[in-house]
């Protein structure tokens, strides 16, 4: 089925989420490596970190940037990481 474009997170949301997960959930900055390999690895790492953040905030652990997850990421907060860093 064609993916409903509205469901895909906007590029700026993906960027916000990456910054959020790097800062508070130890998502590794984009590592070096071949393009395809890097893409596969960073997507699964991202999914895992999204799930970790959803678990912390008691959200449904979809591993995807749904609107609830993005809303929580946009809330003002403390700068200390939520997981050991």
């Amino acid at each position, binding site marked *: 089925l064609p993916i409903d474009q509205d469901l895909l997170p906007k590029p700026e949301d993906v960027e916000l989420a990456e910054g959020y997960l790097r*800062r*508070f959930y130890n998502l590794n900055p984009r590592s070096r490596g071949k393009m395809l390999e890097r893409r596969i690895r960073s997507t699964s790492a991202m999914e895992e970190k999204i799930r970790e953040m959803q678990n*912390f*905030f*008691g959200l449904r652990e979809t591993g995807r940037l749904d609107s609830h997850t993005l809303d*929580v990421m946009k*809330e*003002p*907060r*403390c*700068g*200390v990481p*939520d997981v*050991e860093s």
Partner: protein
Amino acid sequence: FSFYPEKPKWKNHTITYMIAKYTPDMKREDVEKSFRSALKMWSDAAPLRFIKDNHGKADILISFARRTHGDFFSFDGPGGVLAHAFQPGEGMGGDVHFDEDETWTTGKKGYNLFSVAAHELGHSLGLSHSRDPSAIMYPNYKSQSSTQYSLSKDDVLGIQTLYGKPTIKVETAAPKKCDPNFSFDAAVLIGNEIVFFKNRYMWMRTTQTTYWNRLRESHSSTYLPSISSHVDAAYDIPAKGVVYIFTGHKYWVVQQLKTKSHAGSIHEYGFSSSVRQVDAAVHVSEYGKTVFFVGEFYYRYDERRRRMDPGFPRLIQTDWPGIPRKVNAAFKLDGNIFLFGGTKSYQYDFRQNRMVKIISANSWLGC
């Protein structure tokens, strides 16, 4: 609740702090009061003492800065990250940084400094983030009126895991009621008992003078489990069977002793924001009015219309001949209002607007 790896904490339970840089958003004394109140919340829950140190090397250094400010975690402009703090330790350990690109405030507009400071100082003491949305250590900011900012059970369990339970301080030992300098914090009629408050203690006696020696004394937490600080004022509305208890900028509605009561802000009565606490209160059911005493002034509140009467506050001594400048407790019994100022109790006939009798305050306790 959670801790940092290896659970770092301060060995010495007397911890010094210094405000190295203030925010221009607030008056200095409001910034200092916010930090004092935030620290007090933690020292009420654990055997900790905080001393403000303006010169030497303090354990906890507090400052306001924007963007890159000397550590590895630059701030991000308005919104987003509001502040951060370091776990206990030497050097930068324990320090707290607030993002100057935010608007800091004592009220609701902008970010409430007291509540963010309470969270960050939890980090300075060794707590990491909590998953409990009601906890002060929850990572996301909660915009509530400052009356609701208090430690949750989760916060208390966390800090007591690190530092233990608070030691019983001297002032929570029962006050010496027959001491000649004894005075009350508050007084109120509950049912047919007169209840007197001092520090965290309360005495209850019947209104029948013949049974005054059947005095019951107890720690106020026994009868008022929700209220964790000393009582400033109290009044009752017999027709509603409700008692209102005032502690600092909060008031509590008590339907039944020994049960949970819910809190509100005294500013809901219409007090200006400069009023931080009420000294005494008494309800006169004949007129449907409640009189509040604050410093040298008094206010009259209309319970039916739920708002302050116009023309108030007025000086106490203008309208209450013979009553001292300040009143620290009051209750109504039959046709008289009993006002307490210092170590004296003043019986005032409110219909004839005249003083009837003056006795020592603690003679109500059989002294």
